Every structure is written in structure tokens, then in C-alpha cells.
């Protein structure tokens, strides 16, 4: 490309350099955010901090109930959303022809991803709590259990919110399975379902797992949708119930209870603290834990996707 050098382009090289500077600036900001949180939070975070309860009006103690609540909500969210998302993606990729309905479904998936998170909160309140929950209560006649904010509806709402992430990741994984593998399987006499079960899903599994991890990361970081879906300021007890069969009891997540949530906990500490100077270190500690979880999840997802994209490139 020597001939290019004859064409002197000062303005051009200025612009090219400036995009480099600009990108460097972005990386610097990311680094600055991480450095600030790590610097302020690292002294606070310890095993004791993670496994302790908030005490003394949240100016002392740890964040265990918030971590537990986050785990509980995201677990139920995954159970609700991932199968539906994966099966839906299998339909779109393997069965659906390019009809009007499928195009509308694809548009709906993209649009669902763009709905503001606070609107999901309103939807969760209007649909899950006031409509589903209250009707369930009325039918069962057990009084007010499901018709109020609780863990199950928060999980379900977050499940709808992360559904597009699961669908899009699964679609990408399914699309990366070569058509020749499908043809080979069908040519050997396998039915469509056998092909999907034995040929396509095993190859797409890392992609599906990546989507699940990204969905968890998104769910863990969301605050706005759960604001009025049962996230609590402070709860002395974990949302746990003993499930007993005879004498044998196992503790289970209680989906009918309110819960503490790590992201919501940060919001509360930042805006409604009784003593900001005392809570600030705890706050940085909680933030470090939250950002640690999301980054760990995302780096895992990025790494897995890198690996399977490379593996598929080799086929």
C-alpha cells in the first residue's frame, strides 16, 4: 500500500488520530469507574461483609439479605424465562417460515428489548400483581397472598425483560450450526425433532448458556422494574420457607414474600440514608460486589462466546 502514502492527507490523519484518542478516552473512563469503586470498596468487602445482615439502621453490618434476594429472584427468573426463550428461538430458527407472523414476532422481540425498564415495572404491577395475582387469590380463596408485591412477580417481570436477550443469543447460536449438519441428519432418516435434539442443540449449547449468563447479568443489575414489585428497604428475615414432607424439611425460596435486592439496596443507601457519611463506605462495598458479579458474568459470557465462535469458524 505504498502508493497511499503519496496522497498527503493531514486532516485525515488528524481525524484518524482523534478517533484513537476518543476510544482511549472511553477506555480510560471505564478504567476510572472501576478504579474508583475498587479503591473505595475493597477495604469494606470481606466475607463478614457479604454474609452479615445490615445492622444499626443500615450504617453497619453487611449485605447478605440483599445478595440472597438477588440470587432468589434471578434463579426464579432463569427458570421462568430461559426455557421459553430457548424454545421460542428454536421455533423461529428451525420451524418458522418467513411469514407475516414470524416477521411480526421478530419485530416484537426487538421491540421488547427496547421497552423502558420502568414500564416493565408498571406492567408487572398492572398484569402480574393486580390481574393475575388478585384473580389467583380470588379463585383459591386464601386471602391476600399473590395479589401484592412479592418475589415471584418481580422474577416474572424480570423474566419478560430478559426474554429478548435469551432469544437473540439462542438464535445466534442456532444460526451458527451449519445447514449441512441438518441436511446430513435428515438424510440419515432422523426426524426434525431428533435432528434438533441430537444435532443442533448440542452444538448450540454454549451459545444458549452465554445467553443465560447475559440474562442473569442484566437481571442482577436492574433496579427500576422491581421498585414497586416487592423490593424491600430492609427485611430482618430471608424470604425462605421450610418445605416439609413428613418430618423431613428443606428450606426453599418463598416466592410469596418480599425481598431485598442488591441493586435496590445501593439505590436506597445512596438516596435515603439516615447518615450518609457512615453509609458511604458500605455503599462502595455493595457497589463493588454488584459490579464484581456483573463483570464476572459478562467476562465469562464474552469468553465463552469467543471460544465457540472460534470453534465454529474451524468447522
Amino acid at each position, binding site marked *: 500500500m505504498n502508493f497511499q502514502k503519496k496522497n498527503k492527507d493531514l486532516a*485525515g*490523519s488528524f481525524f484518524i488520530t482523534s478517533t484513537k484518542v476518543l*476510544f482511549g478516552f472511553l477506555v480510560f473512563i471505564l478504567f476510572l469507574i472501576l478504579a474508583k469503586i475498587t479503591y473505595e470498596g475493597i477495604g469494606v468487602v470481606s466475607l463478614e461483609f457479604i454474609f452479615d445482615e445490615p445492622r444499626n439502621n443500615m450504617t453497619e453490618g453487611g449485605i447478605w439479605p440483599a445478595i440472597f434476594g438477588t440470587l432468589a429472584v434471578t434463579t426464579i427468573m432463569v427458570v421462568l424465562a430461559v426455557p421459553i426463550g430457548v424454545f421460542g428461538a428454536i421455533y423461529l430458527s428451525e420451524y418458522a417460515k418467513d411469514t407475516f407472523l414470524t416477521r411480526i414476532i421478530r419485530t416484537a422481540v426487538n*421491540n421488547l428489548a427496547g*421497552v423502558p425498564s420502568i414500564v416493565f415495572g408498571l406492567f408487572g404491577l398492572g398484569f402480574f400483581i393486580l390481574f393475575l395475582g388478585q384473580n389467583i387469590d380470588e379463585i383459591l380463596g386464601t386471602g391476600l397472598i399473590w395479589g401484592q408485591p412479592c418475589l415471584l412477580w418481580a422474577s416474572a417481570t424480570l423474566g419478560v425483560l430478559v426474554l429478548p436477550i435469551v432469544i437473540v443469543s439462542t438464535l445466534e447460536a442456532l444460526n451458527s450450526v451449519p445447514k449441512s449438519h441438518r441436511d446430513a441428519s435428515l438424510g440419515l432418516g432422523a426426524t426434525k425433532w431428533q435432528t434438533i435434539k441430537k444435532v443442533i442443540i448440542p452444538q448450540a449449547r454454549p451459545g444458549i448458556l452465554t445467553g443465560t449468563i447475559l440474562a442473569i447479568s442484566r437481571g442482577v443489575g436492574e433496579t*427500576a422494574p422491581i421498585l414497586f414489585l416487592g423490593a424491600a428497604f430492609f427485611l430482618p428475615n430471608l424470604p425462605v420457607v421450610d418445605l416439609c414432607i413428613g418430618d423431613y424439611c428443606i428450606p426453599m425460596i418463598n416466592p410469596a414474600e418480599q425481598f431485598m435486592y442488591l441493586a435496590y439496596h445501593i439505590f436506597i443507601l445512596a438516596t435515603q440514608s439516615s447518615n450518609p457519611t457512615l453509609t458511604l463506605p458500605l455503599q462502595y462495598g455493595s457497589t463493588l460486589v454488584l459490579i464484581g458479579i456483573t463483570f464476572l458474568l459478562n467476562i465469562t459470557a464474552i469468553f465463552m462466546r469467543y471460544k465457540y465462535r472460534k470453534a465454529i469458524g474451524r468447522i
Partner: protein
Amino acid sequence: MTNNSVIPEEINEEDSARIKAESSFGKRISLSVRVKEKIIEYFFALNGTVALIFIILIFIFLFKEGIQALNDIGVLDFIYYDQVQLDDSIKRLYEWYPTSSQPRFSLLPLVVGTLMTAIPATLISTFLGVGAGVYLSEIAKPKAREFLKPLIELFASIPTVVLGFLMLVVGATFFDDLFNPTNRLNAFIAALGLSFVIIPIIASMTEDALRSIPNDLRMASYGLGATKWQTISKVIIPAGFSGVSASILLGFGRAIGETMIVLMAAGNAANITMDLFLSVRTMTATIAAEMGEVSQGSDHYYALFFIGIILFTITFFLNLIAEIIINKMRKKNIF
């Protein structure tokens, strides 16, 4: 035919069915398998429509609650409130004051607040995001890109509540010392926080759009003697323009819908102002702050759902337009 009448006793029914099936190729799959396959297909189809069903449900349930507001409050009351003064004159107020004894439901300050945060955020992010996208797609070496693109994704994964908290504690103090703004928490601080969310969206979508442009175009441009920057500015960006503009639209939609950052950093005072250094209150922050305390079935409650309808409608159409643009671009790029 005559053979058939001779041997029926020797083969049982199952075998004859098998022979019959094997004789006609393609019909070998038994009925039970075919039924099972069909059931599985319908099961997948059911799951496939869930996203569509939920979009429709969101639409229905927002409207179910929010449309009451139009009956109870009225369209004009969402714009202004005529307050009767002591001397019987009428003063027209544009205020959001739903808990007052004379509740005022003007959405004007909230819409202004949303625009005052979303527009500056989108402008900042367009500048930085498109630049970063151009760098990733055209300038960075493939090895560097492999490492830098995930960095952008990591940027996008920072929870918004963390960004809100940092803007509240660190950003606001920094700019308080620097500019000495009227309000410590203001539209500018919130816009900066928002741009951290939108830059990664615009950057990665710009990169996707530019990378989908066939390499022939670049080669042709170099072949004509253009420099790298001339190729980027005269060939690549015009060719990817629709994709870039779609990413900006999506970023703008995200800026309008973002809640936690504006709730924590914009100051939440419902000012109608063009001053970036004054506190503002956005539509999203209003819902987030007031929904918890409102009594169900009150005018205020329905008004908050009505704001939800507005947000949903705006972002829905922004997304739709962006998707149409992207689909058109995809079709065009298949040469």
C-alpha cells in the same frame, strides 16, 4: 394381485403395514411419530409467540390502567391548570403537583425534563459513540478489535444504579467545583450519566453497520487513490449512514426510557427550563419516585400509568423506525 390372495395368512398385519409403507418412499414415518413431531412443533410455536404476546399484554395493561386518566383528569389538565386567584383572575399554571389539594397534572415539566436530559446525552453519545464505532470497525487492527469490542460490551454491562450512584457522589461533586452550577444535581449531570449507557449502544451498532459494508467498496476507494480517512468519510460513513442513524435513534429511545440515573442525578425538581444546570424531573423518574406511595385507583395513580403509556409509545415507535431502517440496510447490502 393374484399373489396377494395366496399369501395373506403368512404375514401378520404389522408386517404388511411395514411393507406397504416401505414401498412408498417418503411415507415411511409412522403416524404416531408424525403426530409427535407436529405436537412438538406446536409446542415450540407456542413459546415462539410469547414475546409477541407480552408486547400485546404490556400494551393492553398499560392502557387498561392509564386510559382512566383521560376520563378522570382530561386531556387539557395534562397540559395546564387554571388557578383562580384571590382577585378572581385566572393564572395558568404548568406544574406537576399531583399531591396538592388542588392537584395539578401538567406533563409539560416532565416532558421538558426528559428532553433536557435525553437530547444532550444523545448528542454527547453520538459524537463519542460513532467515533468509537468508526475506530473499532475501520481503524483498529483485527487483534486489537478482538480485545476492544468486549471492553465496550463490558462498559454496557455496568448496572445503571451504579452509574447513578457515581454521578450522584463523584460526578456531581466534580462538576460542582468545576462549573459551580445553580443546582448541584442538574440536567447536565444526568445527561453525562446517561451517555455512559448510550455510548456503548451507538458504538457497537455503528461498528456492526460499518462492518456489514462489503470490502469491495473500501478496495475500490483505495484503488482510486483515496486515503484511509477519505475512504471512511466519503465512502464508508455514507454507505453505513442508515445503520448509524438507526443506532442513534435506539440510543435516544434508551435515553428517554432510562430511569435510575435520572432519578438519582437529575435533582427531581419539575422545572420548565432550558438551563442545563438546573434540576429537572423526567417522566421515568416521576413514575419511579411516586408509584410506591400512590393509592391505587386515585387520579395520581392513573396519571402515572398514563405517563407509562407515553413512554411506551415513544420508545415503541423509535424502535420500530430503527428496525425498519436496519432491515432496509440489510437488504441493500446483499449485492
